[in-house]
């Protein structure tokens, strides 16, 4: 699974992307985020307030119950501020 980070999430994570291999329990966005937060203090802090984190799965906005699997591109980013 390919993870992408944008804006301050990229800054906090210290990287723009990474490949991860989540365990079988990770089946949707919610369980993916939970698993990521358990990976260490940097993840836990960056993902501490989910109200300011948006998720896209394969370049489409996704809710917490959206399914994810190992071939997906999952992006985490703050609310958008373009225009």
């Amino acid at each position, binding site marked *: 699974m390919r993870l*992408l980070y*944008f*804006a*301050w999430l*990229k*800054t906090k994570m210290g990287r723009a992307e990474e490949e991860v291999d989540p365990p079988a329990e990770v089946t949707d966005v919610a369980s993916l985020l939970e698993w990521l937060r358990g990976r260490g203090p940097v993840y836990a802090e960056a993902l501490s307030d989910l109200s300011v984190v948006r998720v*896209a799965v394969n*370049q*489409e906005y996704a809710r917490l119950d959206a399914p994810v699997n190992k071939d997906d591109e999952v*992006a985490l*980013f*703050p*609310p*958008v*501020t*373009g*225009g």
Partner: protein
Amino acid sequence: MIKVQKQDFDVGAEIDALRAGNTAIGGIASFVGTVRDLAGDTPVTGMTLEHYPGMTERELDRIEQEANRRWPLEASLIIHRYGRLELGDRIVLVVTASAHRQAALESCAFLIDWLKTKAPFWKKEETRGGETWVDARDSDDAAAARWRKD
């Protein structure tokens, strides 16, 4: 049509190209967003726009299609820049053309409001205190909510 690009654009030329030869058009509305010198009370000296290549184009396409579903448009265009921008630089252009002016005016407002809460762009402003990522504004959510259909 949508364009996501680093380089600047020419508003007059873009409008002319969009309406070229189409005499069914009676009104063309446009909006240009530019880099302003203040963020609230904080002086800003420039900014960088980050985006999510691929998803940006998909979202802009979707937004434009939605506008074309809601209004009888003859033509529409969204251009959004990314990368470093100076004060006064153009950031975004929205153009809509229709037989009737209300369709053009309303869809133009819709596109810029909708884009601001959907298209994956993030602004990092340069201030005396350093660079800061801009927070999303409630007023933008409110502006977009006006156009929501249940």
